């Protein structure tokens, strides 16, 4: 090689090295590079007994855009997963980093209803990576996922709902004025919704500890199925060959007392075929009649202790005892009219046996939720109430009593309520 050639080569090399040094060198990013997380979910995984899994448990979010309803967007798949790196000291606690928004197919477009951006709801899923590909695979058709789902952040449909469960929300725009979930007050970005057993929920800070019960039933595999909740009018139907009720039935009803002098109640049992019409239901020794229009049984519980006996053909009978709270005594009546965009303040006397109160404001025009709040106290102030529809809204305050749960998957939540329609004025 000539000296001239060596000189040119040396200069080129020096230039490259100088460029590299000037730009600041560091380790190269590999396939797993992701930058800082956009959100982090934390929590604990819990099991009834000591969990000693030989297979590592991973986490994923399964998004169900059709839960949002209204504008299903491109949600041809009911369940869309979003993997993220899991690190932590399983089985006690976990930290789950999210490095971007949900995948496009998991999102519902809010533009058709007058909003902007997208939203979706999802469930945190703990699973064992059955095929070793490092991600949660979604079952399709009648085939379940090759991965084994061992627990979910919401409730296992084959078991009694846990007192508290969680699901994840996502919103990157603005909901339209009539969005069903307007009253949820979803934050932009990721959000966390805490759900109280069968009653309702509230948005909680994203760093709230999430509990995931490792139930390890076959039923939880339902959440890793593309057909899960695909038809919300028949949500009980099996998907991916998975029976949510594992051959059993599920009785979960809410006793709602609107008129203290004439309590009424509709309840029913479900299995994989839908509402069960042939069950024998007795409330305080009185047989309840089947109401086909409501796909349930009608009865009149008494304020105070009640006894419910249930006999579903093919299953052993069971019994639940619950206490129906007394009526809510508001300090000031709900007004007939309110200026639009104003707030409504309510206060009431504590109701014996009640630990939580639930306020809902809906549009009487289309039923969409305008405001939804929970409190363990005895007063609430609504969010500013916008004029929507014809300006007719329904304000409902619930006093939620102690749930009665059976050893099976049945539960009853007794509630007394007060409701009034209000006219919003411009």
């Amino acid at each position: 090689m000539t000296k001239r050639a060596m000189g040119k080569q040396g200069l080129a090399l020096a230039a490259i090295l100088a460029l590299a040094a000037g730009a600041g060198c560091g380790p190269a990013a590999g396939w797993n590079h992701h930058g800082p997380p956009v959100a982090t979910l934390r929590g604990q995984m819990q099991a009834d007994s000591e969990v000693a899994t030989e297979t590592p448990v991973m986490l994923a979010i399964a998004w169900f855009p059709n839960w949002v309803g209204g504008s299903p967007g491109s949600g041809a798949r009911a369940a869309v997963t979003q993997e993220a790196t899991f690190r932590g000291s399983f089985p006690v606690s976990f930290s789950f980093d999210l490095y971007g928004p949900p995948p496009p197919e998991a999102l519902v477009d809010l533009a058709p209803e007058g909003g902007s951006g997208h939203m979706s709801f999802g469930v945190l899923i703990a699973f064992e990576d059955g095929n070793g590909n490092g991600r949660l695979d979604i079952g399709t058709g009648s085939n379940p996922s090759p991965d084994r789902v061992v627990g979910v952040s919401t409730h296992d449909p084959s078991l009694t709902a846990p007192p508290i469960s969680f699901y994840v929300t996502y919103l990157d725009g603005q909901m339209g004025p009539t969005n069903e979930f307007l009253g949820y007050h979803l934050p932009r970005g990721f959000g966390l919704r805490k759900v109280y057993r069968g009653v309702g929920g509230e948005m909680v800070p994203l760093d709230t500890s999430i509990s995931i019960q490792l139930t390890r039933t076959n039923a939880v595999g339902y959440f890793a199925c593309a057909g899960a909740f695909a038809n919300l009018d028949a949500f009980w139907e099996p998907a991916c060959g998975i029976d949510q009720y594992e051959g059993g039935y599920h009785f979960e009803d809410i006793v709602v007392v609107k008129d203290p002098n004439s309590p009424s109640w509709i309840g029913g049992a479900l299995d994989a075929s839908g509402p069960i019409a042939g069950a024998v239901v007795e409330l305080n020794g009185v047989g309840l009649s089947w109401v086909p229009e409501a796909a349930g049984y009608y009865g009149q519980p008494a304020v105070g202790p009640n006894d419910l006996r249930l006999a579903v053909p093919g299953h052993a009978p069971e019994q639940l005892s619950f206490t129906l709270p007394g009526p809510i005594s508001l300090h000031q009546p709900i007004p007939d009219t309110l200026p639009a965009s104003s707030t409504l303040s309510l206060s009431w006397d504590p109701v014996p046996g009640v630990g939580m109160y639930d306020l809902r404001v809906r549009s009487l025009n289309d039923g969409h939720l305008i405001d939804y709040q929970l409190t363990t106290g005895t007063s609430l102030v609504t969010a500013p109430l916008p004029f929507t529809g014809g300006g007719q809204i329904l304000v409902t305050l619930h006093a939620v009593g102690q749930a009665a749960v059976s050893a099976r998957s049945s539960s009853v939540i007794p509630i007394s309520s007060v409701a009034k329609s209000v006219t919003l004025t411009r």
Partner: protein
Amino acid sequence: MRLQTLVAPGALAAFALLAPASPARAADSVRVLLAIGSDVGDPSDQPLRYAEADAERMRALLVDIGGVSPDRAYLVVGQPAEIVRERLSEVAGRVAELAAAGRDVVLIVYASAHARDGVLHLRGTHLPLAELRDRLARLEARLRLLIVDACDSGAVTRAKGGTPGPEYQVALEQLQLQGQVIVSSSGPAEPSLEADALSGSLFTHHLLTALRGDADADGDGVVTLQEAYSYTYRRTVSGTGFPRQHPTFDFDVHGAGELALSQPLKARAALVFPAALAGQYVISTQPRPDMVAEIDKAPGKPLRLALAPGRYLLRKRDGRRVGLYAVELPYGGDATVDDRQLQWRDYAQVIAKGADLDPSPGAVMASLSLDSPPLDGTGARLRLHGGFLLGRAEWWGMASAGLGAQQYRGLSLTTSEVAGAAGLAAGYRWLQPGWPVVPMLGASAEVEVLHQSFVRDGEEVIQRVFHLDPLPPLVTVGARAGPVIGVEVPLWRGAFASVQAGLQVRYLPAEDQPAFTVGAGAQVGVGWRL
């Protein structure tokens, strides 16, 4: 039957009618060759240096353009007389088989060794040339050609009883088609010389040059025995001092026609001298400077010189200057000599540089490389390189720079990578005349700089909704080194193709993998010798 012994080429004019002009002209004609060479003679003989090499060259050339198929080309080098006799018997059997099958057999026997008093000296044993001649005479080949390059080899004709006649004396118009021809490199009691400058014997060197096409006096693409002998005689006589070496020619044949010894037109590769060129050209191999041919090119007639594919150095003397031109002869291709491409050097400089002389040691190259992923799960890398290749005899070195761009998916983002590299490589190459490719072995070392930029899935949303900044680009400096193996394939003129593969020990600091990894790569390129 007639027998004549000739010492001068002019007498061969009539021999042009002896045999078919083309080795392949007769459909059922086959040629059998036995090439014998022995550097070592008697203990009292000074060992020869090129007798065995000459036998190998003769075999290679006759296989290439002499119409001899490789399976009928026997080579016996460095063996004693009994082994040569065994091989002669084997050849005799082969000839008999072919003749029995109705084939028209032409047998060529070439022998190069020490000799004295008409006896070949083969590793301390003796083989009388008369025995060789007589054994050939008994074979069933239609035509038998014995070429002996040895001292005193003219004795073989004398032993047979022939007497050398005066130049241009013999009329051959009545000759028959079959018989035996003997060509010897020297007359009786004459030495046959070797020349270091030629890396061979004087006689065989000129005979080979003749057969390559320089003796094709009528330009028909065929070198006949007459043309080859005339050429070789003239060059051999003029190339020796005192005592002069006079090749001899003896025949005992019947019939008419010509014996075509070679067909340069059918060569796999050839150096073509256009008609207009004139002067003395010396062609030698590279990097080992074996002289292949000396051409005294006269203007007005083109010359096609058959050579094995490979790299050659062409020299043309012009007073105190020497014109140099390195030429690649690709397999199955020709190269045309063009005086305008000669690089003129001072004669003294050329003499001083000797074997290291190379007018075009450098070449520029462009190549495309494909390397295994330097980062797990990110796919193979494709890069474009430019480089300068420097050769010095069998050694080569290369400096190169490369650039590549790649885009690959990560877990939740897309990475765009631009990589620059600069490297050095060096090694050994096998520049063997006749090989269609040049194998190479060496080692390479490279410094590379990786620039990675990232676009996350939903990047716009991440910045707008989550208020996060774009991910900063990363710059990483790494290195790699390892062995390379490859081949160069000469193409046309100074062009060549190159294929290389190598193993690499890589150093690349990375987030999720060890800094040191092992990879592999391959490179395909083209180059042009400057």
